[in-house]
């Protein structure tokens, strides 16, 4: 089975950052907690592969730990979105046109009116900024995304004859939703999951950039960018590398998502 080129490339690139995040749990080239003012603002090269920041911390190490934050936040947020959104979508599709369906649809539209930044603002205003609140904000926004995708996919399957055959065989809606519907939209959900994962990384970066996400001393890519801003003209490496890390991780995940879509369901690729 020939794997699509995109899938391999994307997986490889994403793997680098995921590996970095995992390795950081046990080792980083330098400590990220210790400040080393004597070594501040060093350009890349020498002992510090990517240079140091304004506190003398090694940028590479900070990136690795920051990867951990971004990936953790994004993945848990996807988890929240799926665990709540998919059953809601299945429920809505199975009871199409009913009050339940209306409520789910309206609820979706309502949450869509609140971009995750605004949800984060509301949560942090009353509970204070933290990584957990970032997870909540992004996760809550993911719920209608998955609910909508699930409902859409499920609806088109409910009209098919094999669902009717299952009903004639006496199976109830819940059973049909799991046995017939879910198995056939799984591919759709996997692809959407990777998309939301990459969007989650972008969202987390934005939130920590404005100070609403992971707080110091927990390093995060967004905050590294915020810190670098005033020094950008004489220490551009502080801004470039975290940004590149974000771009490459998101790019890798998107390529992987596209590649998976081509692999898992050639019908979806109809209009590529």
């Amino acid at each position: 089975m020939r794997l699509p080129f995109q899938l391999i490339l994307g997986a490889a690139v994403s793997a680098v950052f995921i590996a970095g995040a995992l390795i950081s749990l046990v080792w980083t080239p330098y400590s990220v907690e210790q400040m080393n003012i004597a070594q501040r603002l060093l350009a890349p090269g020498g002992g510090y592969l990517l240079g140091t920041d304004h506190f003398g911390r090694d940028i590479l190490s900070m990136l690795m730990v920051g990867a951990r934050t971004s990936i953790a936040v994004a993945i848990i947020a996807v988890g929240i979105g799926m665990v709540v959104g998919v059953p809601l979508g299945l429920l809505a599709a199975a009871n199409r046109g009913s009050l339940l369906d209306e409520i789910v649809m309206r609820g979706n539209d309502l949450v869509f009116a609140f971009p995750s930044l605004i949800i984060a603002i509301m949560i942090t205003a009353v509970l204070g900024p933290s990584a957990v609140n970032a997870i909540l904000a992004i996760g809550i926004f993911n719920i209608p995304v998955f609910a909508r995708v699930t409902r859409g996919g499920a609806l088109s399957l409910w009209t098919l004859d094999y669902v009717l055959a299952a009903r004639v065989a006496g199976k109830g809606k819940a059973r049909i939703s799991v046995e017939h519907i879910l198995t056939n939209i799984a591919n759709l959900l996997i692809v959407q999951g990777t998309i939301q994962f990459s969007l989650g990384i972008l969202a987390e970066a934005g939130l920590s950039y404005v100070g609403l996400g992971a707080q110091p001393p927990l390093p995060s890519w967004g905050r590294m960018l915020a810190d670098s801003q005033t020094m950008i003209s004489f220490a551009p490496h502080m801004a470039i590398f975290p940004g590149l890390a974000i771009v490459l991780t998101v790019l890798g995940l998107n390529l992987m998502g596209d590649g998976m879509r081509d692999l898992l369901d050639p019908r979806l690729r109809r209009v590529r």
Partner: protein
Amino acid sequence: MARYILSRLTSLILSLIVASLVIFTVIEIIPGDPAAFMLGLNAQPDTVAALRAELGLSGSYPTRYLGWIGGMLTGDFGTSYTYRVPVSELVTARLWVSLPLTFFALILSTVIAIPVGLIAATRRGSRTDYAIMGTTQLGIAVPNFWFAMLLVLIFAIKLRWFSAGGFPGWDEGGWVNLKALTLPAIALALPQASILARVMRSSLLETLHQDYIRTARAKGLSQRQAVIGHALRNALIPVMTILGLQFSFLLAGAIIIENVFFLPGLGRLIFQGITQRDLIVVESVVMLLVFAVILVTFLVDLAYALVDPRLRHRA
């Protein structure tokens, strides 16, 4: 058509009501006692009581909620605790920075994305198509505020074509303000334009597979005539549905990006409000932002019905 408009309008009003309830509940109820929350842990009980009276926080939930709504409908958004001025004053000037920026970015994004998507779709499989797909793939991955920082580095600091930030104010005339908003709008527009271009491309490709395109060719239309006369309008329909979502992302992005350019928009107001625990400000600004998103979605729904006649006959 009238029935459709009516149902959308009801939807709009209902959404606003529910959204306002959510905002009110989260911001005023969750902290428990907003006055104590705002003053912090070390406040004296009588200061807290005084603030509570001043802000009218001693009523029951429904009275306070209705009071808030009533106030907003008459333009009274309360008084900021930190600045001691009516929130409406604080907000008005900044709204005139954030909203123009958002719309500027929306227009830029649409104007770039639709032709690009069109070209990619009509030249599917060619090198142009691959180049466009590659660029948009990259564009989606770039955080807009980081891109903004790079733009500042190149165009403001190194090349000095634009200033590195700041906003002269509308009294100084339109042109110089638009110039100040240009780099931010470009930074905002890039990722959204990338998404929009891809949606346009796939939507057009999907449309080109439809039977009525074959009918048009059989009538004697050239491929180009069929694309412009038939495919384009149908392909734009799915694109329009995401414009509403685009607006909300752009608005959120605008708020973040103001940080890079030191623009006196809603962003700084909100974030300071959060750090200073000024719940009144946060509450009102969030309500305004959500209102803007819901309104734009409503307008897009209306436009959607104008383009697709099948919708006008359904409720």
